[in-house]
């Protein structure tokens, strides 16, 4: 079992970042206030994702059960 509970779900964070980026492309006239807020959130997500990427370990767990039928 992974010892530490993962605070960030990579898939969710990445999807959110993609959503935000898509939002920036969605309209010609961006609302600057909303844009700044989203940008800030995007940077936050990106930094969390990068932090997760720095995590290099994969954990292998052996399954004890016998499978022979």
């Amino acid at each position, binding site marked *: 079992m992974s010892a530490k509970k993962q605070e960030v779900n990579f898939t969710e964070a990445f999807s959110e970042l993609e959503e935000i980026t898509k939002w920036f492309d969605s309209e010609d006239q961006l609302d600057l206030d909303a844009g*700044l807020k989203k940008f800030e959130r995007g940077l936050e997500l990106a930094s969390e994702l990068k932090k997760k990427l720095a995590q290099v370990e994969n*954990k*292998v767990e052996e399954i004890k059960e016998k*499978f*022979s039928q």
Partner: protein
Amino acid sequence: MPEKALSVGEYLTLVNQTLQCIPSHEVIVEGEVSDYRVAQGKWVSFDLKDEEAQAVLKCFMTTWQLKSPIEDGMRVQLKGAPKIYERFGTFKMNVTEVAAVGEGALRRSYELLKKKLQDEGLFGEGRKRELPRFPERIGLLTSRDAAAYGDFLRILNNRWGGVQVLHAHVHVQGREAVGDIVGAFQFFNALPAEKRPEVLVLTRGGGGLEDLHAFNDEAVARAVYASEIPVVCAVGHERDESLADFVADIRASTPSNAAERIVPSRQDVLYEIGTLEQHMESRLRDTIQDQQFSIERVTNLIGFILERQKDRLSRAQEGILSRVNAWLPRLSDRLSGSERFLRQVDPKRILARGYSLVMAGGAVVRDAGQLEVGGEITVQFATSSAQARILRLKDKGQQKLV
């Protein structure tokens, strides 16, 4: 040759009797089938050959004796009784048992099973599922002694981190392999959702058909098919194929390739994150710049309008001034003309020359006829006036009061 000669038939009977001395129940002959024919749906004939020694054994049997189908190119083992047919003088083996062995036979049964599963729709593209983009839990089905195990984990670690690998040690060849693999599929699929892997990898190194038998086994193919968890299958080298490959959601060419198909590489994802960041930033920057431009444009426009109004004002001023300048001298000319004229007609000037003005009853007297004797008149001089009384009047005769 005085001794008694045997007839051909007698001789062949002797040979056949001699041939029966061979313990046919114990002797197994192995070779490759060629020129396989069935006559009248009953009589089976084929040649059994050695590839190297160029030896041929003519074989004969009935279709009822043939339990499993054979065909050209198949390697078989058989038992039978050798015999010379008197009528044609040919030597033949009367086959009693035949069984396919080796690659040839396995290839055949592989093809038959492949066709069956294909017809059943187990390989359908429509049922292939997509893998999660960033899996966090992977179920690995392989032998811990296999090179595939190390290859898979090495590439996995090179590319990605933070993954939990649940390793089910299964035999990938030998008698236990099929049971192990099917059991492991059942185990993973029975796990509760929070422990269940998001993807299963069934892998082993390459090999011949005999080595891969478990991966070509119907039970394994059906276990892959039945798995609720998406399955990546990777067998051996690029060119190796197995039935499990075809049923799997993803067919990877090698164990390393399986790892590549399951997890992205850190570099790629880092690059992608960087690109997303840059894109957001540039879009935001564009927006800010756009708005700056708009403000500048409005400011410029206002400035321009003001400037134009100022221009119009000063042009109007100039116009007025130049018009004024044009008609002012004329006006003053006319004014001084009028003045001169007025000055000339001023009665005071006439009076100053010594004339007087007679007024009666407030009005200027132009005709003495208007006057009455004894009437009072006012005589206006240049500097002052005097009151007088009319003493005399003459008709038509003008008489100045000087």
